[in-house]
């Protein structure tokens, strides 16, 4: 019975690992393919957080050790806390520096300074 449960956990870890890695790959694909910084950031910070969360969860589960699991969980919580902060700050920096949105985007509701040098 114990062996069976371990086998199930191992298969679950394998599955979660592949799903998490595909999320990370899709995030990086978004970083390449999207037209401007703001959309790229959208892909990187959302899908990247999901991918890293799944992979860290898989790693913590695989060890079957509460100490390692707590570490993986701490890393995940740290990511959830910090990814929006860095994305927000970078987007604000880009907007303040006059980084225009791509022509495909519809509306920019944040007022942009007129004298900002256009990049």
């Amino acid at each position: 019975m114990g062996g069976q449960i371990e086998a199930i956990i191992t298969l679950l870890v394998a599955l979660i690992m592949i799903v998490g890695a595909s999320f990370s790959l899709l995030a990086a694909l978004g970083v390449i393919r999207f037209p401007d910084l703001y959309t790229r950031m959208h892909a990187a910070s959302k899908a990247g957080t999901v991918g890293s969360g799944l992979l860290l969860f898989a790693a913590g589960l695989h060890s079957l050790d509460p100490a390692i699991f707590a570490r993986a969980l701490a890393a995940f919580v740290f990511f959830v806390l910090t990814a929006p902060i860095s994305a927000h700050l970078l987007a604000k920096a880009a907007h303040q520096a006059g980084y225009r949105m791509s022509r495909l985007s519809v509306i920019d509701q944040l007022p942009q300074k007129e004298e900002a040098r256009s990049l």
Partner: protein
Amino acid sequence: MTELAILWSILLAQVMLALAMAFALYRIVKGPHAQDRVLGLDALYINAMLMLVAFGVRTANTVYFETALIIALLGFVSSIAFAKFLMRGEIIE
């Protein structure tokens, strides 16, 4: 059978993460503006950390997890510093 499944899935995950790192590197090299390069660096350090976690699962070594935490911490601080530098032109005021 399960050992084989986990080995192959780790290999697949590592290949995907390596591809993701290559994509982020492409954005760092190509990126039209400095902000794009910082975003690429952000994606690169996250994927590098996940790669280390995958190595940790493969070798069952706990040192990789500490390393992953340190990389996450330093990467966050560095991208904040870069963003602040791009916004104000200086980091410490």
